């Protein structure tokens, strides 16, 4: 007996939650050096958003092929490692400082943030890919069930 109920409430109310989750994820990523946050946590928050979007609206969070995020993340992390070497500094030497721009005012920048973004991309790449695959698998089960139930009648 296959029960199929459209969770109207859930899918409607999930949109704002997903929006906040993604905003929170990026916020955590960008303030990594100053306050609790960082690539791993931000990546997992975005993964939670992907889970929610899959569950509530049955729609992938990111439309592109998230598998490519993994090598790009690694490349970014490696680049921040190798770039200082080209300037004669040892591997993974990081630099930091403060910038003041007209509208934004004084804000700190650090190259470690780029490395953190690399970590973020890898974590997001892996979790979202797995979630999408599991969802496809579930969707696929349904197709199989329908075909089998179709054959019964």
């Amino acid at each position: 007996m296959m029960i199929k109920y459209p969770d109207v409430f859930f899918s409607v109310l999930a949109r704002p939650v997903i929006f906040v989750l993604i905003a929170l994820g990026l916020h955590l990523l960008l303030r990594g050096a100053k306050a609790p946050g960082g690539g791993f946590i931000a990546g997992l928050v975005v993964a939670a958003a992907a889970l929610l979007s899959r569950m509530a609206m049955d729609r992938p969070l990111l439309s592109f092929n998230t598998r490519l995020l993994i090598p790009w993340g690694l490349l970014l992390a490696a680049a921040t490692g190798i770039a200082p070497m080209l300037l004669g500094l040892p591997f993974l030497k990081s630099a930091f400082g403060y910038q003041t721009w007209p509208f934004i005012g004084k804000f700190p920048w650090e190259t470690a943030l780029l490395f953190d973004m690399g970590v973020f991309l890898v974590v997001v790449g892996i979790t979202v890919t797995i979630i999408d695959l599991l969802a496809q698998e579930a969707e696929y089960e349904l197709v199989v069930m329908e075909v089998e139930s179709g054959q019964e009648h």
Partner: protein
Amino acid sequence: AEDVAVIRANWLTDLLMLIGSFFILAAGIGVLRFPDFYTRLHASTKLVTLGGLGIFIAAAVAFIPNAATERLLLIAAFFFLTGPLSGYMIARSGYLRGLPLYKEEGSADEWEAQGEGLEQFEKDNASSDD
């Protein structure tokens, strides 16, 4: 360096905090003492949301000096949004999966009473493919 906030222990924070903790206490007792699943569900979702709001607003007032109030209001908003929704989801799956209702003599299951019942709902749903 933790943000040291000077909390003016004003009366508003204390009052709201008291109200909030009263509701949470009520929720605790409700979850402990209520006879069946559905009634306990009321306590665990509705009451705690109310209690939580009380405490959040108290905290919002308390954190005015170090500009954390808007974050707290965001949390309160989400608290208000997710609390009842999770209650609704649990209740639905509980009922549709046939958890027994607590039957006192006077009470009746409106859904059952209207003759709708689970099977009937099945039929309309099975035919329509969403």
